[in-house]
């Protein structure tokens, strides 16, 4: 950790565009942007300059005293118990919880600060940081390379794990639970800042803002879950990151890739990410990405493509994904050109592919060679049984088209009026819209669906009960109506009644 490195934090907004200039013009534009709008610069809150306090400045607690007497390379075992203290680790040690150890920050400041390389922290419960967004109160702040944080439980924290200039670190099997604050007042559950080649594996993050990678390349993100966060995983200027087998559920956005190159997303499950800008995967000005074998379901928009790929040099690859039950399968801004979306399942998205704004999807391919996608709304047939539909799949429903142009009309979804409009669109060529895209070789059968077992295996019993009780209500109404005689009113049968009249 060098002083100059820390200094740069304070001026981060200036170094941020300069780090990865795409062209002199863009650099100029970005600098101009930041000069004219300081708020924008503030929004991507940079790690602030936190001058590490020396141990001498603090009163040492029990763990602090253990650390003070340890030599570099030692393993420090902390006996079970609850400790209310703030730690600074300034030598390469392994800190292990011996039993159930809770370190409580007492609701103020950071809790653990690591300023020496090669530190390991394993098995602690660390809870209750301050809530000062300005100070970015974190459970574990790391200012040195090669740390290992393993099997810790972080509860009730503003920022969880905050790595600054900490390459080659490993963050394994931690649970990070943020404070349930309003989203604007939350901190990042996990933040990597210039921490290349990290491994983030098997963590569970919830109720935070983002798990975010800033300028951290070559990171592997594997088998994590994130739910109820803003962005389950957020990449800023982080290249060649591999993101596999994660489950990102119920966030605002599952994975948001911004300004990053060479990212691979494989085997992830992106489910029910909703809200005004709820996306399973968002891609903003991202290049050379591969999205393969993911399950993208129940999101407001499964995939959101904004200016990606950014350069036309290499196509963005979407392959073997299942995009199902989203409000919109793919939302594509016309600025996105050069994607190859081939061999995916598009199943029952209300709007399979939407164009956001004026323009067309001409620059993107939905089929290649003899292979297209599976579209659940494909209406053609396959006479020669080669698994490929005999007719081109063209997406041209009138209502979808209206909806893309005027999102307010989504209010009329699921109504008979919507179907009336679609019928008109089919029946009258004059109002039939231009096809949004075509797939000349649509698949007749879906590709193998990803296996996914929900947390709670669905039971058929409750709905059986519901159906049964509804039927019972219906039958009892029928019985009430068809009943011939009523007690105390013996002569009210049909024929005697007529006689009486």
């Amino acid at each position, binding site marked *: 950790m060098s002083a100059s490195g820390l200094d740069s934090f304070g001026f981060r907004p200036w170094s941020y565009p300069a780090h990865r200039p795409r062209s002199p013009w863009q650099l100029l534009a970005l600098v101009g942007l930041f000069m004219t709008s300081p708020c924008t610069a503030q929004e991507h809150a940079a790690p602030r300059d936190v001058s590490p306090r020396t141990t001498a400045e603090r009163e040492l607690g029990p763990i602090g005293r253990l650390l003070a007497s340890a030599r570099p390379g030692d393993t420090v075992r902390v006996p079970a118990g609850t400790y209310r203290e703030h730690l600074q680790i300034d030598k390469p040690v392994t800190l292990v919880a011996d039993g159930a150890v809770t370190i409580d920050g007492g609701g103020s400041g950071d809790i653990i600060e690591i300023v020496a390389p090669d530190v390991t922290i394993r098995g602690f419960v660390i809870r209750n940081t301050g809530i000062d967004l300005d100070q970015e109160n974190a459970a574990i702040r790391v200012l040195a390379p090669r740390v290992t944080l393993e099997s810790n439980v972080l509860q009730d924290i503003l920022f969880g794990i905050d790595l600054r200039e900490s390459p080659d670190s490993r963050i394994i099997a931690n649970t990070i639970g943020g404070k349930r604050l309003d989203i604007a007042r939350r901190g990042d559950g996990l933040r990597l800042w210039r921490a290349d080649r990290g491994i983030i594996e098997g963590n569970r993050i919830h109720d935070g803002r983002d798990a975010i990678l800033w300028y951290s390349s070559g990171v592997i993100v594997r088998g994590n879950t994130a739910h109820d966060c803003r962005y389950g995983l957020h990449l800023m200027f982080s290249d060649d990151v591999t993101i596999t087998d994660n489950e990102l559920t119920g966030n605002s956005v599952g994975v948001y890739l911004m300004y990053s190159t060479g990212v691979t997303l494989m085997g992830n499950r992106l489910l029910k990410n909703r809200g005004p800008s709820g996306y399973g995967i968002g891609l903003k000005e991202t290049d050379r990405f591969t999205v393969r074998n993911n399950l993208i379901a129940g999101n407001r928009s499964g995939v959101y493509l904004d200016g990606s790929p950014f350069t036309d040099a290499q196509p963005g690859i979407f392959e073997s994904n299942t995009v199902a039950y989203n409000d919109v399968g793919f939302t594509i801004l016309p600025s996105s050109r050069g994607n190859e979306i081939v061999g995916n399942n598009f199943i029952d998205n209300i709007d399979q592919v939407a164009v956001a704004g004026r323009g067309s999807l001409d620059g993107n391919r939905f089929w290649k060679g003899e292979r297209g996608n599976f579209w659940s709304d494909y209406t053609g047939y396959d006479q020669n049984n080669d698994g490929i539909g005999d007719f081109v799949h063209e997406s041209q429903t009138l209502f979808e088209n209206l909806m893309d142009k005027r999102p307010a009309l989504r209010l009329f979804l699921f109504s008979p009026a919507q179907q009336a409009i679609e019928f008109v669109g089919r029946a009258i060529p004059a109002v039939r819209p231009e096809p949004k895209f075509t797939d000349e070789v649509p698949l007749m059968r879906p590709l193998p669906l990803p296996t996914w077992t929900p947390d709670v295996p669905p039971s058929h019993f409750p709905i059986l009960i519901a*159906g049964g009780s509804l039927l019972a209500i219906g039958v009892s109404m029928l019985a009430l109506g068809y009943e011939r005689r009523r007690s105390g009113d013996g002569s009210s049968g049909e024929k005697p*009644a007529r006689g009486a009249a």
Partner: protein
Amino acid sequence: MSTVIPAAVAFASRRPPSMASNTFCIARRELRDALKSRWFVLYTLAFVVLGLAVSFVSAAGTGGTGFSGFGRTTAGLVNLILLVVPLMALTAGAATIASDRERGMLAYLLSQPVSPVEVLLGKYIGLGASLLAAISLGLGACALILSWRGGVSSPQTILWLAGLSFVLALGMLSVGVMISSLTRRASAAVGVAIFVWLTLVFGSDLALMAGAVALHLRINELFALALLNPLQVFKMWSLHAIDANLDVLGPAGLYAVEEYGRSLHAIFAASLTTWIAIPLVVSSIVLARKSPL
């Protein structure tokens, strides 16, 4: 038309019957007549068969992935309910008083010691019960199909749909009864009812869409206008109740959730209650004031 007579005579000969027992008596007669009517049987059959088809087809789409999105099943059922239930309720309501009037039944009924309001309420409750039968049979059968086919949507979904359909049916029935009380001939009443149905199902939505595009309505205005249509209210309410959010309905839905949040249930309930109460009040005034014959 027969059973009410001895009942009323019997009641009259003993002691002045209470309003509740008169109303109940007429309600039972109305329910019995409704269940025997060809229309009721046809509508119910159509509802059950179409509902089964929707459930069957949509459950097939989930193909063992284990999730059933709100998407197909519920959307299909909502669509079906929006088409069939209002039609059923409007025509049932429209036929009732006007046809009694035509056949002289209304005059006969009112010559008994029953008030016009009792007749009206009795008919309303009886027809309401018949609609409840149709809705619960239809959706109950759908639930059985869904549990069998494994397109598991939660039981809450189907119960909410049934409950809200019933509230919608009560509103539309109320409008039908009002049409009936204002019209001399049964055929005219049913004609007007079908026109109203067309307007609510297609006309008002299409007009609102055109308005949104042409007049650049703001989303709050669009949402407010949509609240006037009981069918839209039913749809939004079901989405809100089942999915706990309205963001599937785009900006207007997001606006509604942001702006009204928890009170949305109350807003939707208020709207549908108004559709039940006001036409009923109007028809009771018409029946009580004017010569009902």
